[in-house]
């Protein structure tokens, strides 16, 4: 089970968080500590080293995509390569939705990024792997949203 997915951009050897989603309940303070430690650890890694880290009893898997780092925290016995692919698939999904995704897309539409994540993972487990069907369900919700907006903006007689 995945505990956490987050994404941050490097900023002065300190990560600036762009997205974080927890799948296990933890007190606020603990969460902050984990994220802080994780970002510094990941940023301290040299290039050409492996994408896995140990943090206490968690395993951290990270990958850099352009200027963004995507990370997830897993339990010790999980399969790291699989987690790497989960991150990759998520980035692919973002890419499909935004069309050539960049950091700004995520900053300005981060709620969309969350919606995509919700469709992809549920309760820390992979829910749907097909790019097409995730795109479909996101689109359906967006459509509903738009029609509702239209409907609401019309004066009601």
């Amino acid at each position, binding site marked *: 089970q995945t505990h956490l997915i987050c994404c941050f951009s490097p900023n002065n050897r300190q990560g600036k968080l762009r997205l974080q989603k927890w799948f296990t*309940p933890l007190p606020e303070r603990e969460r902050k500590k984990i994220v802080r430690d994780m970002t510094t650890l990941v940023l*301290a890694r040299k290039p050409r080293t492996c994408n896995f880290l140990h943090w206490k009893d*968690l395993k951290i898997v990270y990958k850099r995509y352009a200027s963004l780092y995507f990370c997830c925290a897993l339990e010790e016995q999980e399969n790291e390569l699989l987690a790497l692919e989960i991150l990759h698939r998520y980035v692919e999904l973002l890419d499909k939705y935004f069309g050539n995704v960049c950091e700004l897309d995520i900053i300005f539409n*981060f*709620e969309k990024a969350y919606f995509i994540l919700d469709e992809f993972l549920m309760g820390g487990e992979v829910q749907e792997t*097909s790019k097409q069907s995730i795109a479909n*369900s996101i689109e359906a919700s967006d459509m509903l949203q738009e029609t509702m907006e239209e409907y609401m903006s019309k004066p009601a007689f």
Partner: protein
Amino acid sequence: MKEIMVRAIYCEMLGYEASFSYIHAIKLAQQGSAIEKRVGYLAVSLFLNESHDLLLLLVNTVLKDLQSTNLIEVCMALTVVSQLFPKDMIPAILPLVEEKLTNPKEIIRRKAVLALHKFYLIAPNQVQHIHSKFRKALCDKDPGVMTASLHIYLQLIKNPDSYKDLTGSFVAILRQVVGGKLPVDFNYHNVPAPWLQIQLLRILSLLGKDDQSTSELMYEVLDESLRRAEMNHNITYAILYECVKAIYTIYPKSELLEKAAKCIGNFVVSPKINLKYLGLKALTYVVQQDASLALQHQMTIIECLDHSDSIIKRETLEVLFRITNVKNVAVIVEKMLDFLKNVFMEPDILFLLYVGCFPLLSDTYSPNNEWFIQTMNVVFSLGGELMHPDIPNNFLRLLAQGFGSEEEEQQQLRVFAVDSYLTLLESDTAHLPQRFLQVISWALGEFSYLKDGLEPCKVTKLLAKLLDERNVTSESRSWILSAMAKLSAGPGAAALALQVSERYSSSLDTVLRQQALELLHLSQDPELHARFFHLWHVQVDSSLSFLDSFVSEALSQGAAPYKAPHQRQEELRQEKALSLEPYSISLPVSLSSCSITDRQSPTLLSMSSSLSGNSNELKAGSSTLKLEGVKRVWGKEGYLHQQDAVEEAAQVEEAATPALPLSPQQGGAESQQTHGDLTVVEQEKQKLASSLFVGLGSQNSTFLMGKSDSTSQQFRRKTRAADSTSSGVSERSSSSSHSSCSDFLHNNLLEDSQNSLNTQKIGVSNGTHEGPVTQSFQTTSKETSPFLDAGMVLVQPCSPQTELRDFVQPGSSGITQTSLRSQFPPELSQLPHSDISLLSSDHSLSLSACRAYRDDALLFVIILSNCSQSSTNGLSVQLDCKHIFETFSTLIQVEPHTQVTVAGSVSYRAVPGHTQTLQFTDKLFLTDFIRPLTLSTEEYGKLWLSFSQDVRQNLKLIQGEGDPLRATLSALKEQLQLHIVDIIGSEGIVACRLLPDSPCLLHCRIHGGSLAVWLRSPLLSLPDCLLYYCQKTLEEC
């Protein structure tokens, strides 16, 4: 509002407090239109966690949305439910989520299954009744829903026994997936449904663990997935890794193991660093089962030890740690310490795991005491303040109590410790960590008297010097002071102690002042000192009888009698006005508390963490060369065997490839030089390898040592022990019966020995007509066994004077229930007994079991039938009796359980010289041990009053014609063998006993529409377990 909420989320993410907006998020989810709802739910799921109070406000919204006709609203509600939901509120929405399992939309079914998965994780008891629906989800026509249901099964199958029958289906699914039968939608980079595959592999490995017959079903498909997964993409590597793990978990098959080992080999030597990591991880797992596998990769392991990435290094050390044995422990520990030293140069890195491993290592294999103490010294001084506090405590306990070795050795160890600590104290102590100082002072205080010719005064002086060091914390100071108090008896020491105590009796720290004063008095008065330190054994009155008068006085003054917490809880429950019905649907209260265990915080057990850029870089590229050498020359026989040949080969290899690493253009001279360096490095490595892998393979140990000594033997046995469970020989069984009368034989069991007249069981029906004899042995055993008390006895079978009786059994090749029943010994068939159930079978033998209930015992009957055409020899039955004894003694005397498992194996020779083993397991339920307890109403009343604690629960009434109370009670009587003592009006009293004779009394009353039951018993958990069965029975009626 929506925009504002999005901004609030953003603020919260950046770490600013935005808790004022939480309530608005909930409102938005509640009242907003679809678009706002979506953002509202998102905000709620990001802001709140499961224990937050505001979540209660959300329950109603979720309920409403679950009932909505709008697909998207339902989806949103299910998503938020699976993200966070308060545990107490699950019963409220459970029916709605359950209903969604039959929704025509695939996406809703899938989300509902995942939500139930979440519920199962939070509160397994509450979803117990819908297990059948999970099966339906597994068979769903949409692969997505099926995939989702596997998440649940992976959790359920952690307890695999009841799911063995699903193995076939899982194998079939995996076969289809691997064969590419799924829609293209599920492909990920041209690999068919990798997540699904991995999930299935995990499930299969759980199912096949230690179970040969189940494992046999999956060999083929595992082989196929190994074959199909081509080495080209990360995701296939992930599948392969999972596959290898599965192969090593299930019952071993040599062919597959070989393939898997090869696969790991490819991983480990891969230039891709992530793969190398995973390969090492797999190796860590695999060497636990088969240490010799590490031999094949020894050079790679050595390479990895010097890898520039500390994560890889750490993983390598983990592999080494698993292959530790008596010969290489020194080298491995040295490597680990090296690593520790390097890592500690970067201050923010804790590396507790390894420090934690050491004592463990040293205990089992430490070559000698001196080495152990020295290693521990290094560990303590390196580990310092970061060390887990358990480690010093554990170490001190080890010093004090020893680890099971001879007293003499023990003393020796202590003397070593004292010696080395004295040396340490005499040198500079400023750099020693506080924890280490505490250890030192304790050990000196306790054991310095052991060393001959050591004046306590000298030790005290050293300690006093330590006490005055500036950087010593007050905690360590108090350790030192108490050590001094122990030593203060001697003449010189007393004077010194006086000095010290005077100084510290004016200390600002209260604890120190107190201890200084104690020290003062103890050192002044030798008699007091002697009394104080030799009065360890204080008499304790465990019955607290001295409190009796106090209790009776309090009672006479009108105090309420003491009630156990458990009882008080029950009362509170009664008083509460709220109906708690939904909570107690499925299980008695005491059982439902187990749900929290799964949900520990992921970082609760924080032991290790690491990262470092360690730069012991080898010349890049040299690795490929050497790897080639490793691969070609070293086969399975291990490396040391052919060491010389290898070196030669490596050199030839190098000479043949002058285009060494970096320097094709740098010219010959330089490459020549590198070459020279390399061979030196190479040789060093080989030396290292030989010291590291000593004792792993049999050839190696004999080659090196000239003889294989018993310790290494022991070690090897130890490594094998891991798979010995799966190899089918249950070494633990405390009793095995070998009976080989004529060609056939059988029989052995749990039986009652008191009754020498009728007993026995077991018929073998031979399929052929020429060998038609079935023998039944009458056996008795006079020996007393621990089972006697529990009403169960172990019988040693067929002593010479056993009486033989023949049943002539016409051959029946197909075994049916009826033919089995006809073989049932007549003595037993008069007793009430359960159905005969087939436990396990193979091509020539089938094994069934049945439980017969005698008044004073439970007879567990095993029936073996030969279903082949040939005769079977050398039959022996082994029951895992040690286990049974343990479980029964706890079952009956300490703590009743609802069920226990009996395991055993049958071995026989179908073909001469070839022994086959058939394993079986069966379950015994609590109800098997329940018997009616006949007593009169008066006796019942007396007994009732003699027990104090009671358990209360409401049960379902059976509504039928006639009196519901009577109907319900007689149903219970029928199913659970209870005795109805009396029924008066709307109340009934019922009694039963648990073998041998632990009574349990039930008092039932119709209350509203249900049956209120009070249970009393001298055994604490018997009522709970019984209630569970009552509920189950009534649910089924």
